[in-house]
């Protein structure tokens, strides 16, 4: 293991020594949330939790604009969905006054068609707004809905045209068209250069973009595959699992899709299939996609078995991260320290992330409740927590 205390690079925060910004891992699970506070060397972790024991926590996110505010998307088996907010790192939580909720049965945007009302089952995804809009947050729900808060997550309202646009409602489909846990809107991305430029993804429903602050959206699907036999021209048949924008090059997007791994370099609208260079015995199916904070040619995926009946386990019971350092032209297996057999878990789309330190730390949580980390960009892995509930999301964040 490299001695991180000796490493410093110009663009990354040094890992080790006396760094005033402390790392925290935000772990959302099927039965609550946990915070893992790391020391400067990322060697020791102090666990804080459970928070919301028994609640289904789909996402727990720190506001990078203040480094203090947490939002948690929650529901229980019995009760409706809600959001909780903390401004003291989880010592106390307050509930959103108005959680995301669809409008009552509504008219279509063109007025000619009455659309059935929908009910938010749970908020699935949280994205802080642009750095110039400190109170703004976005939320994606199941079934697919886009919501926005302008007051730091206290009050939420439907955002943009898509929730009740007849065309988008058709593309969203029904519950049977979505994932086993329900159809979802996720991967809400704010262009760091332009607060009016957003991307989002829907499972199912495809990838979409707005350049006018949500007044209009358009599909961004060219060259993406769909399941054999379906029409790729229909956004409803597209299933993007996770889309990420590269902070070091906001014109580059990576995507882990139900049908492969892709890269998009704007202004092009044609996705490039970069999953074909994955080993055939591993395949190019998975949920998460992680990008390097400072090098847009580096990204990571966590393949799963997407053959036959879609077991959604590590291929052959041998979990591994795959890394590319050349924009997806080639992939390298990163499994040192991971189980070498009989490990039948996988990693969900929000359950893998990178910190901003140097070298980059990678983290993932498993469906079997294990939390794993690498201090060296995936070359070596170690387990830092076991026996947690099924992990839905892992976010690595730096406290102010």
């Amino acid at each position, binding site marked *: 293991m490299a001695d991180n205390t000796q490493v410093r690079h110009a663009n990354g925060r040094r890992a080790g020594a006396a760094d005033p910004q402390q790392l925290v891992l935000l772990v959302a699970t099927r039965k609550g949330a946990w915070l893992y506070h790391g020391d400067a060397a990322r060697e020791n972790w102090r666990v804080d939790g459970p928070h919301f024991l028994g609640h289904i926590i789909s996402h727990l996110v720190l506001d990078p604009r203040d480094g203090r505010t947490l939002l948690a998307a929650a529901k*229980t*088996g*019995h*009760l*409706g969905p*809600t959001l909780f907010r903390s401004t003291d790192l989880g010592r106390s939580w307050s*509930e*959103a*006054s108005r*959680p995301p*909720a*669809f*409008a*009552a*049965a509504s008219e279509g945007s063109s007025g000619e068609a009455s659309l059935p*009302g*929908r*009910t*938010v089952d749970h908020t699935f995804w949280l994205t802080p707004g642009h750095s110039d809009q400190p109170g703004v947050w976005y939320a994606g729900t199941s079934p697919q809905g886009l919501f926005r808060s302008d007051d730091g997550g206290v009050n939420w309202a439907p955002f943009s045209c898509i929730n009740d646009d007849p065309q988008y409602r058709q593309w969203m489909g029904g519950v049977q068209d979505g994932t086993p846990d329900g159809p979802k809107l996720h991967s809400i991305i704010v262009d760091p250069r332009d607060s009016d430029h957003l991307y989002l993804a829907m499972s199912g429903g495809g990838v979409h973009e707005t350049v006018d602050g949500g007044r209009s959206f358009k599909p961004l699907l060219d060259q993406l595959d769909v399941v054999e036999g379906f029409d790729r021209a229909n956004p409803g048949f597209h299933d993007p699992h996770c889309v990420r924008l590269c902070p070091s090059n906001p014109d580059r997007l990576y995507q882990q899709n139900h049908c492969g791994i892709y890269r998009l370099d704007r202004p092009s609208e044609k996705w490039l299939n970069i999953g074909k260079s994955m080993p055939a015995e591993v395949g190019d199916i998975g949920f998460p996609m992680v990008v390097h904070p400072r090098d847009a040619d580096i990204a990571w995926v966590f393949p799963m078995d997407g053959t036959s009946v879609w077991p959604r386990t590590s291929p052959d019971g041998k979990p591994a991260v795959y890394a590319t350092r050349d924009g997806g032209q080639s992939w390298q297996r990163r499994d040192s320290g991971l189980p070498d057999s009989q490990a039948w878990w996988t990693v969900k789309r929000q359950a893998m992330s990178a910190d901003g330190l140097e070298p980059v730390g990678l983290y993932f949580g498993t469906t079997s409740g294990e939390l794993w980390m690498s201090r060296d960009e995936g070359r070596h892995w170690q387990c830092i927590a076991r026996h947690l509930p099924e992990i839905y999301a892992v976010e690595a964040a730096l406290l102010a």
Partner: protein
Amino acid sequence: MQVLIPSALRSYTEHGTVEARGETLAAVLADLEQRYPGIRFRMLDEQQQIRPHIRFFFAGEQLRDLTQALHADGELIIVQALSGG
């Protein structure tokens, strides 16, 4: 009237039994929302439907309609149905 609160909702009320007013189930739930902000949306969705695992009982009868009349000397029982996993 008295309202019996299930454990899953006591984070709002802090008590297993609370007082609320209203001549219908909808009115009682609105009063509870005034007293304990946020509690109503955990039981009713945005289409004004009772959530799948929530049940209301009054005078031994299950209430399925928000407009159902209630009387002040009765007891409303809110139950979380058996579910989970």
